[in-house]
């Protein structure tokens, strides 16, 4: 379990990282926290020509409040966000979800944007970005663009990021007054990837549920003002649309049932918060 040979570029600035991506394209891999890339390198699942390290770049550090959104740079570790004093007030859904991300050890190195870039279908951070209508800020030598989370996650471990782009930051709308948030997850062990993860956001006018671990990417549905049995029925339809699959740890039917029952519980928890 040793990586194949690769070159390591410690980017001196963002421009150098952009340059490396432009030059090597898909043969380059960015590394920040390394919690996903390092095992993949060691197992030779990925064999890039170059690994471009951006972790230390000052431009990517920091959590900033800009207008009504929180900008989290690509160099921000998950543990850093979890320890951010305003997290509960500004991003209550992430406050609830981040403890479910891996373990304390992996959070202390893994980054928020790295999780978005990897786009694991069970990962909590992409799920929260989708649920909160976050946007992903991408940059390359040619410029900069922002992509809504709903368009960014295009499939299993695939995103709208072009080969020459890097995620510079994610922008997450801050907490809205009159909104309730809740997060729930079921995995086999503490810190495992979710078999089903649910994020609920409830306002006076709408019930929103986003689900991870079931489809090939996080999935979201707005249920308007539905409640009671009508909401259960709508959750049932939602569960069926997710194309759940059997795997070693759970059946498709099990996953659908958790979407129905845990999804409803999560919505009710968000409602209690809202109330």
């Amino acid at each position, binding site marked *: 379990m040793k990586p194949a040979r690769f070159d390591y570029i410690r980017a001196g600035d963002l421009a150098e990282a952009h340059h490396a991506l432009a030059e090597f394209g898909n043969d380059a*891999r960015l590394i920040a926290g390394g919690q996903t890339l390092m095992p993949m390198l060691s197992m030779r*699942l990925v064999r890039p020509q170059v690994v471009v390290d951006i972790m230390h770049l000052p431009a990517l550090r920091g959590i900033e409040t800009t207008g009504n959104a929180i900008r989290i740079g690509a160099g921000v570790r998950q543990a850093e966000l979890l320890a951010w004093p305003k997290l509960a007030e500004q991003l209550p859904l992430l406050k609830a979800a981040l403890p479910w991300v891996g373990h304390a050890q992996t959070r202390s190195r893994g980054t928020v944007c790295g999780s978005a870039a990897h786009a694991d279908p069970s990962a909590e951070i992409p799920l929260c970005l989708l649920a909160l209508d976050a946007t992903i800020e991408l940059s390359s030598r040619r410029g900069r663009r922002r992509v809504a989370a709903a368009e960014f996650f295009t499939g299993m471990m695939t995103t709208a990021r072009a080969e020459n782009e890097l995620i510079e930051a994610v922008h997450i709308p801050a907490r809205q007054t009159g909104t309730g948030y809740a997060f729930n997850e079921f995995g086999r*062990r503490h810190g495992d990837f979710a078999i089903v993860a649910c994020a609920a956001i409830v306002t006076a006018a709408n019930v929103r549920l986003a689900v991870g671990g079931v489809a090939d990417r996080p*999935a979201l549905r707005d249920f308007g003002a539905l409640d009671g049995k009508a909401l259960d029925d709508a959750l049932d339809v939602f569960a069926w649309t997710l194309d759940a699959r059997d*795997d070693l740890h759970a059946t498709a*039917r*099990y996953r659908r049932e958790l979407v129905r029952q845990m999804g409803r519980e999560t919505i009710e928890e968000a409602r209690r918060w809202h109330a």
Partner: protein
Amino acid sequence: MSSVANSPPWCGQSVERVEDAALLTGRGRFIDDLPTRPGTLHAAILRSPHAHARLTAVRTDAARALPGVAAVLAGADIQKLSSSLVVGVKAKVECWPIATDRVRYVGEPVAVVVAASRYLAEDAIDLIEVDYEPLPAIVDPVAALDPAAPVLHEGLTSNLASERTFRYGEPEQAFADAAHRVAVTIRYPRNSCTPMETYGLVAEYDAGEDAYDVLANFMGPFSLHAVMARALKVPGNRFRLRTPPDSGGSFGVKQGVFPYVVLMGVAARVTGQPVKWIEDRLEHLAASVSATNRVTTLEAAVDADGRVRALAFDQLEDVGAHIRAPEPATLYRMHGNLTGAYDIRHVSVRNRVALTNKTPTGLNRGFGGPQVYYALERLMQRVAVQLKLDPIDVIRRNLIPSGAFPYRTATGALLDSGDYVKAFEIALEDGSFAALRERQAQARAQGRLYGIGLTAAVEPSVSNMGYITTVLTPDERRKAGPKNGAQATATVSLDPLGGVTVNVASVPQGQGHRTVLAQIVADDLGLKPSDIRVVTDFDSGRDAWSIASGNYSSRFAAAVGGAAKLASGRIKAKLARMAAAQLNVPADDIEFAAGKVRARGNPDNALLFSRLAAASHWSPGLVPEENQALRETAFWSPPELTPPTEHDEINSSLCHGFIFDFCGVEIDRVTGEPRIDKYVTMHDCGTILHPGMVAGQVTGGFAHAVGAALYEEYAYGEDGSFLTGTFADYLVPTAMEIPAPVILHYETPSPFTPLGAKGVGEGNCMSTPVCLANAVADALGLDAIDLPLTPAKLAAHIHGAESTPPQQERAAPPPGKGRALHGAGQAYVDAAPDAVWRMLLDPNTLASIIPGAHGVEKVTDTHFRADVTLGVGPVTGRYKADIRLSDLDAPRAVTLTGVVTGALGDARGTGRITLAPDSSGTQVAYDYDAAIGGKVASIGGRLLDGAARVVIRQFFAALVRHTGGKPAKRGFFARLFGSGA
């Protein structure tokens, strides 16, 4: 009298472990920490991606040519310089440490690369090309015995490697007379104890002396020293085996490093340089050793009051692809105590051993116990349920009565000591069983799913080296000569400053042997534990050892501790005679206390222990002995461990502890997750030498058992692909998942061991899995339940019938077998079937629709080869693709068969494409079956199926695009392949 003289003995106290200062500060000396000689090379192993295949070619030229590579060895190269590992049954089978003509399990070594670094060795592995001719794989032991099943080994006529039947007492009569017959059939799954440190070794060969010197984190039994020496074709004295000072856990598993000792010994001989190999985690999970899986049918003849009169065992053991020594020992380790803690006099046994295309099995904590007790204790619960009795009463009525010890079981074990009934009653009382029943009643009144489980068990320890020969018939045993005993060794020596050193061949992996031996010898010689230095790193060229040496069958406290006490006693007797001469008192009146050797009753008439001990070095004449050496080695083997009798009775172990467990488990109605609410475990492990370590052993065994019961399984697809190749899929519970059990003790010293101690390290691995399963069966009202008790499995009993899918959503395709993927779809193409057909058969078509093709070579009109890059997201690999068209039915249908192979694994699939005219165009429909094996199947886990669908989707989407079509309607692909299409 000095107050120190009356200080309590060290044994029985939880003294600080001498091992911990180094281990807790990162100063342990494990095999990979130790310096190696300059010029040491590093090995990597190419392993089979197939469960069963003929090896037709192993091309190593490119690997050999890589700079830094010293040697590339395939099966034939190893065979030239070694011989087959000895196999423990009378069958014409060989067992090589590397595949020779075929591969028989995923992970089986196929080639070894020796290079200047492990990185280079792994680079070279990627350059080896192997031609495999896949054969049908046998995964299930029952299926393995089907006469139509492919036979794994040429020397055998079937996959049945051994069959024996046994009869004790009058089982037929007991069944004929029985008021009730109760039976269970269980399938015990595969799992392993996964030590934190994997296998590792450094092998050297001395050409001048034709001798091997291997440093390995091997753990015994050292009967395998003989197996290794014979395989390397040298006398035992030319095979020196050493162990590092520390070894990071084993739990039996590190017995399995021995085939690699042979493999790397040969590699060292070929290269003329030391060869180091450290197993990585992927190798370990796929191919180290597994515990056996077993299919057992167990039936009981039962009286109306629940008293069990007879048992009939039918055990089918799955040892995997080879009968690797000491297997089939797992099946026979419990033979003497098959009746557990119960007084059952009539037993019949049918034991069969099957070979399957899975990793060979070997030692694992509990060794044979989990498999036996899962059947026996599920049966006892079923007796209670079927006879509508309280399970507590069923156990109580069947326990071996007080005062019956030593108790000879029907199958031959001599249960050394105990009072099972009393220990059982104390456990119910001190563990508050009545309160647990109330708690269950309350939970059930609230509609919660709450069950109680019980288990009684006998924990055997200090294995009789002869129990394995029970697999042979009495006649075969007569020819082979008797095998028995459990020879333990210890050496105690005195140095010129009067210090005491103890050397043992117990090969610990963190258990704390050094601490306990210091306690034992300190008590004997009136010293402090810190006065005693204990050396446990082992050298077969220098230390006293025998075939039973090593760290297994919970033999340390009883056997090695006892041998140390005997060796120390001999030193003590000699010193007492020396002191007697100097103190002018009879030797019988000499006592050892407080660092002094003194006259009993006159503590002032004393010598310093260290001064007396040093005398033999400085003034040998003072030692009034013919043998003046103050170094004593004790060999101890208990006389109770006799060979199997003519009637196949076998005292398979020297000591037998008693365990009674009970627990309360609640199951979540939504998730099906079992939660251990309370767990009580009562142990009689004889005299307790170190309470803290006993608690550690019980807790550790319990943790392993929780893993086996709720989380862990080495899973295989029906094609033999290995599905749990990383810790993301082989789920070992962490501290978060393991509650603290309530541990109770009732001590009855063993009369057969010098210290009265028995083993305690494996018991919960035997008792806890079935105790938890009994609780779950009680909670859900299930008749039968197999491990592991996963939430999805349990939820299937809770969730009830599911809603039907809404009309606009199609149900997912039926679940495949193993790693098989199934899919189907169709698309509308705006061209006539003839035109589409021509496009499909155009040789250029494949080039443009195969994802990532780097040029297509046309072999014939219907056979193509291509180099392709396939993958999902960042995980891409280069593969060779071989594609054939067949069953051509122009212009209506064609079958497309593809095989891709590469370093990450292989996939094969078949798709049928049909064309049907539809208004002005064509409906192109297809369905496919695909299977994935090799590395990605082992480590891809939960993402693999989805990733494979992405690749297949790319292929068919390109096909439709190429023929000018569009998906039939929006969302069509989404339902076929996931919402990503």
